[in-house]
């Protein structure tokens, strides 16, 4: 099954908007009832991660290139696993110190998969894939370093590359979305 290019681009735009929601909800502080600002830790983030995973997995059905199918399946797996672990933590049913590393590692590994995607299958959209992979890796590494250092910043610097990744995904032109 082959989708028209505009349909592929629409899928990327919608996923970009969803990722933007995830990043902004997770990393931009929200004012509490006491007037203080802090992380929201809402359950919206894990659900959005799992919704994104379902969207990425859809590519496995619609794609006609085996590399695209493989890489998108792995992206879906990572996003679903991260969403499930975060949901368990935010519901209070599973709490471990290493869960702090789930989101940074998910971003980092998804970024690495972008680079692998370019490595194993060159397309006209390679410059976009490299840019997006680089931004995800930067966001993951920055957030990993922040978590490991134990510093509680009001706004994580990782929000910049991660927001950049989402905006690039939204702005991806139709011709490069194949």
């Amino acid at each position: 099954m082959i989708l028209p290019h505009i349909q592929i681009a629409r899928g990327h735009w919608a996923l970009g908007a969803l990722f933007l929601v995830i990043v902004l909800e997770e990393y931009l502080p929200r004012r509490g009832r006491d007037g203080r600002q802090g992380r929201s830790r809402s359950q919206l983030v894990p659900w959005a991660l799992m919704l994104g995973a379902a969207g990425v997995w859809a590519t496995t059905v619609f794609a006609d290139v085996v590399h695209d199918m493989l890489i998108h399946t792995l992206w879906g797996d990572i996003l679903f696993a991260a969403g499930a672990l975060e949901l368990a933590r935010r519901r209070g049913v599973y709490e471990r110190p290493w869960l702090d590393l789930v989101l940074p590692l998910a971003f980092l590994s998804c970024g690495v998969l972008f680079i692998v995607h370019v490595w194993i299958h060159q397309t006209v959209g390679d410059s976009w894939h490299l840019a997006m992979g680089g931004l995800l890796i930067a966001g993951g590494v920055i957030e990993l370093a922040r978590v490991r250092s134990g510093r509680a910043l009001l706004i994580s610097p990782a929000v910049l590359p991660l927001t950049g990744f989402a905006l690039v995904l939204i702005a991806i032109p139709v011709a490069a979305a194949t």
Partner: protein
Amino acid sequence: MGVVDEMTVQRARGTLLQPRVVVAALMILGGLVWAAARGLHFYGLSPINVAYDLDQPPVLVVLVGAWLLYRSGGR
């Protein structure tokens, strides 16, 4: 009365300087400028066409900005 006005102004200023409000305002403004520069395509008003109408990059940025503004309130 003057004290109340000053408190109201300070509260309003505090609300406007929240990171979420600032980012949301930038996104809505950026999306509107992007829409004006790029142009939007109108597909129609049937359910699937409304989805196409909304799934355009500048519209998505404005929608996420509006959602962020809504989510900037107290927890």
